[in-house]
């Protein structure tokens, strides 16, 4: 062996280039295969693709390089910083030219702003969340109309078939991903005919037959107007000097006025909840609010909000461009899902946050905090607790509204009533 090593002549020569390329290709294929295999094994362990071991959703969107680059940015931190920046007071004499410039760029109609003196808005955040003059947005007089909850542009609408909602340019996502699982109620999901509110009715049947009984459920003197406004039982709001009979909330005149307002006619109160038609379907509409739009939103119909689900997701931009390029955008972003019923059955209202407008405010839900470190931490903790229990993390925190409206089973909203809005950051 020593002689062979010593006496053998070493001769170097070039490999054909094709062999080299083939070798590099083979190595690359091996690396990719190994990586994919590791990923599949991880998914098997965690139970679902794209999840951290604790179950909290990790945002790993597919799409062009712009989307991938965006997914590496700390969008929520940037959004909070943007919000803080816009809460800085603008020098008094710069407010008018500043807000006029903003209005010019984004098309704000200053004639309909409730406070015409622009100097009273200390910063852009206050101007952004401005109110409008009374009567600037008249409600459609048809009581059977579903109203637009805010100013904006209709991006998409249609009927939900097979549980999928179509996004712009044909992208689809499932209704479960948007609203959370077990939604809507089985009567809708299974496409059964009939009245989805039978549970409510059967619980209360025999108790409530008239408006007077409606006003005395379970011995508590709730009244129709107070229920619909989410108010307290009338007994707890009595003043020292009793109001005139005509002004009392539970007076026949007041009840008749509300019944007329709700277009109830001679129907029982639960007609608000139960559809009369035999066959129903699920519909959807997507409305995009541009930066210059009025950013408070109002109730699109008379309905009862039964519960709220807060998804502490990401805060991608929701511009039409990104909606075209990022599939399932609405199921990634932070959003508040309000679930309830209207007279035709299931009803839900979903404000979806964006990078510049990350804070969603719901007027009747003071505990709700969106785009905050606290909610992120709580979501992480909830995910870890669920993982410790061996249960899947559902991805949202849920609250129910049942305090004031025991009869309706939630918080009642009237058409056109202000529900909340989007705030900067």
């Amino acid at each position, binding site marked *: 062996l020593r002689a062979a090593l010593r006496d053998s002549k070493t001769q170097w020569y070039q490999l054909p280039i094709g062999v080299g390329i083939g070798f590099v290709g083979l190595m690359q294929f091996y690396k990719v295969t190994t990586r994919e295999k590791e990923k599949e094994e991880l998914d098997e362990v965690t139970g679902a693709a794209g999840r951290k071991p604790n179950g909290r959703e990790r945002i790993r969107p597919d799409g062009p390089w712009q989307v991938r680059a965006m997914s590496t940015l700390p969008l929520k931190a940037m959004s909070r910083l943007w919000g803080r920046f816009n809460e800085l007071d603008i020098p008094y004499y710069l407010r008018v030219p500043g807000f006029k410039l903003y209005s010019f760029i984004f098309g704000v109609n200053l004639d309909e702003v409730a406070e015409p003196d622009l100097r009273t808005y200390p910063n852009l955040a206050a101007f952004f969340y401005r109110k409008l003059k009374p009567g600037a*947005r*008249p409600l*459609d007089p*048809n009581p*059977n*109309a*579903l*109203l*637009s*909850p*805010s*100013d*904006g*542009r*209709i*991006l998409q*609408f249609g009927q*939900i078939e097979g549980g999928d*909602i179509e996004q712009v340019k044909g992208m689809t996502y499932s*209704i479960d991903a*948007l*609203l959370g699982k077990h939604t*809507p109620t089985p009567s*809708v999901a299974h496409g059964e005919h009939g009245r*989805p509110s039978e549970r409510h009715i059967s619980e209360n049947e025999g108790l409530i037959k008239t408006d007077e009984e409606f006003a005395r459920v379970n011995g508590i003197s709730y009244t129709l107007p107070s229920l619909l406004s989410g108010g307290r039982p009338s007994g707890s709001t009595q003043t020292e000097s009793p109001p005139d009979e005509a002004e009392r909330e539970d007076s026949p005149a007041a009840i008749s006025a509300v019944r007329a307002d709700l277009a109830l006619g001679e129907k029982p109160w639960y007609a608000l909840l139960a*559809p009369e*038609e*035999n*066959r*129903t*379907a*699920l*519909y*959807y*509409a*997507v*409305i*995009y*609010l541009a930066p210059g739009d*009025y*950013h408070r*939103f*109002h109730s*699109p119909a008379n309905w009862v909000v039964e519960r709220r689900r807060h998804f502490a997701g990401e805060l991608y931009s*929701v511009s039409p461009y990104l909606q075209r390029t990022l599939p399932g955008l*609405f199921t990634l972003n932070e959003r508040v899902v309000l679930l309830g019923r209207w007279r*035709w*059955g*299931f*009803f*839900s*209202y*979903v*404000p*979806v*946050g*964006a990078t510049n*407008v990350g804070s969603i405010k719901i007027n009747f839900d003071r505990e709700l905090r969106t785009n905050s470190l606290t909610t992120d931490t709580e979501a992480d903790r909830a995910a870890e607790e669920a993982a410790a229990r061996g249960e899947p993390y559902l991805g949202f925190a849920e609250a129910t509204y049942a305090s004031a409206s025991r009869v309706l089973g939630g918080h009642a909203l009237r058409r*056109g009533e202000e529900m909340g809005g*989007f705030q900067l950051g």
Partner: protein
Amino acid sequence: STVVLVFEAPVEQGSDAGETKGGWRWNVEKGQRVKMGQALGYV
């Protein structure tokens, strides 16, 4: 920011006479600008 509405509504039903009644009808078009309070559709 964006708002998504998902709701249940009656399906328009046709009769033998060719008439339709009672269903949900949209009152908007894709890309249309809307104002708060404007009707998106009717039952």
